[in-house]
């Protein structure tokens, strides 16, 4: 089987988009936060917490969409905490974000143990099934790749498209971008910088949590410890790679998914000769490479990581 044989099959691209889905949610959330001027390093913990609460809600009988809602609310709540620390109090975004990740991760693990004392094997749920839409799912090429995914993949694509439109075409989106570049000018226009930034962090964190929920409600059917496995950090790297633009962020996430799907197939072909861990390292190394490539010509939002304190210049 040659490389081309792998790349030209439809199941490969279906898998690529599936693997990319949590990253699309995460990177959409990260772009939203960072365009408003807040680096959200809570992402890894927010995804973990979203994965846990989403799964738990379904396990307790809330239904799949109930789980999605629970995850989004969890993310929004953690986003509110991060906004309080970084926007209202103007604390270090690096340390506050890591603090939220530590808190959210340990709360998720503690909550899991609380809900299921002594469970050896994690209980399974019935996850989202692949869609079977009339007409759309039967389209050649696009049908299998796009429309036989689960509903959450389409939601992710919708979210990032919506984000692109919101940032580029709406007055609120313009204000949000301005807040990430020159908050003093926005404040002079009579717009509340803190409220706008906090709103972006809350909404962005909810999106990140959905990325986590995809893992438990769609990719797998249970919650495992350490299942997010650095996907949050990968999203932060992809955001830089994408130059903070939603379109390029989507492209980056899908390319990343394609690479990951490729790596899995390569492992099946070349496995045995090379230790499996080498393949597992590749996504992280690729993310570092993407970050370095992006950092060279990065045009980060000017006020990224700069707290805005009223009456201070």
């Amino acid at each position, binding site marked *: 089987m040659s490389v081309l044989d792998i790349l030209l099959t439809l199941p490969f691209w279906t898998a690529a988009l599936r693997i990319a889905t949590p990253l699309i949610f995460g990177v959409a959330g990260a772009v939203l936060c960072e365009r408003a001027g807040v680096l959200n390093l809570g992402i890894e913990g927010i995804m973990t917490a979203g994965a846990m609460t989403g799964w738990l809600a379904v396990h307790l009988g809330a239904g799949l969409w109930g789980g999605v809602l629970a995850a989004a609310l969890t993310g929004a709540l953690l986003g509110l905490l991060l906004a309080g620390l970084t926007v209202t109090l103007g604390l270090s975004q690096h340390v506050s974000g890591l603090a939220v990740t530590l808190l959210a991760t340990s709360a998720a693990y503690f909550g899991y143990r609380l809900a299921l004392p002594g469970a050896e094997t994690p209980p399974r749920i019935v996850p989202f099934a692949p869609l079977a839409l009339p007409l759309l799912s039967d389209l050649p090429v696009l049908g299998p790749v796009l429309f036989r995914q689960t509903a959450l993949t389409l939601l992710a694509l919708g979210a990032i498209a919506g984000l692109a439109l919101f940032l580029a075409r709406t007055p609120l989106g313009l204000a949000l971008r301005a807040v990430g570049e020159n908050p003093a000018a926005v404040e002079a226009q009579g717009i509340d910088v803190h409220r706008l930034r906090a709103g972006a962090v809350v909404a962005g964190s909810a999106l990140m949590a959905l990325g986590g929920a995809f893992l438990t409600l769609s990719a797998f059917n249970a919650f495992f410890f350490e299942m997010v496995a650095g996907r949050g950090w990968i999203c932060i790297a992809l955001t830089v790679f994408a130059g903070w633009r939603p379109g390029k962020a989507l492209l980056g996430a899908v390319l990343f998914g394609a690479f990951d799907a490729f790596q899995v197939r390569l492992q099946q072909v070349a496995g045995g000769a090379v230790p499996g861990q080498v393949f597992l390292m590749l996504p992280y190394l690729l993310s*570092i490479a993407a*970050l370095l490539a992006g*950092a060279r010509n990065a045009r980060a939002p000017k006020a990224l990581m700069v707290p805005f304190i009223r009456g201070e210049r």
Partner: protein
Amino acid sequence: MIRLQPRTETPALLRLAVPVAAALVALALAALPLALAGAPVLRAYASMAQGALGSRFALTEVVTRATPLILTGLAAAVAFRARLYNIGAEGQLYAGALAAVAVGAGAVAAPPALLVPLVLLAGALAGAALMLGPTLARVLLGADEVVTTLLLNFVVLLLVQMMIEGPMKDPMSLGWPQSEPLADAALLPKLVERTRLHAGLLVALAAALLTHLLLARTVAGFAIRAVGASSPAARFAGLPVAGTLVGVGALSGALAGLAGAGEVAGVKGFLAADLSPGYGYAGIVVAMLAGLSPLGTVAAALFVAAVFVGADSMSRAIGVSSYIANLIVAMALIAVLVAGLLTRYHVRLAPGPAAR
């Protein structure tokens, strides 16, 4: 309305009171998850205190756990002082552990007086080398070192798994993935018989003292603090900003690598993938609780270690998940961040925004 007014100087007592208050607040907040778990809250606290401080063995266990935390705390503190956010202490710890096994598990034959320092040096060098890439990427390309160091943590952990299942695997371990044991001459001596307390503690305490002297008393330390306070100003004053960052990165990585070598040579005697229960990440909390002061990391590390040891024992006695310890430590970080505002600002009650 509450107003924050910048302080010109911080009273020493307040500087000391803030982390203590944060730690107490975090411990108090733990009542909430404990109550949620349906545990008898007061008995849980008593059990935690008993487990951490109630016996000679408990105390040695706390100090044993504090040893790597002092080193990873120093790693974070010294880097954060220069605003180099090294979050890769976990990976650097494992890199140090790998190097310790490479040198100490039979590759070099030497008497203990020579081999033990050699093993520790190898660990420090490996940690420093691992931090070199992220620091250079930051200095040369402006790539955020938080993300690169975090991602490298995953790479190093996979490398460790690869080595202990492959080239470094102990053939006597019955299929269990762990490295060959260190030679007896490479092991750190025990400080107290029949406990786990080992001479790595003295290494960690010496490291804290030396780091303190470096920051407070040397030109290099001044450069580190100046770069952290304002890198444009440091550059304008003619300080070598890039060189300082590379140096402080190497020092930070070396301290974390030393922690890994110490755990292998002092506690386990071999390398396994569960060597560190997150000592690298907890080091960030230690550093923040210490207000980035090297001597303060000793006290902060003892607190964090006591929480972990106490929670373990409470978990065995009452059955509440020991993740409560991670929860307390994370809440302490948030509390100290918020309380830190008090060291930088006066909180004033003012009638309105116009009031001065």
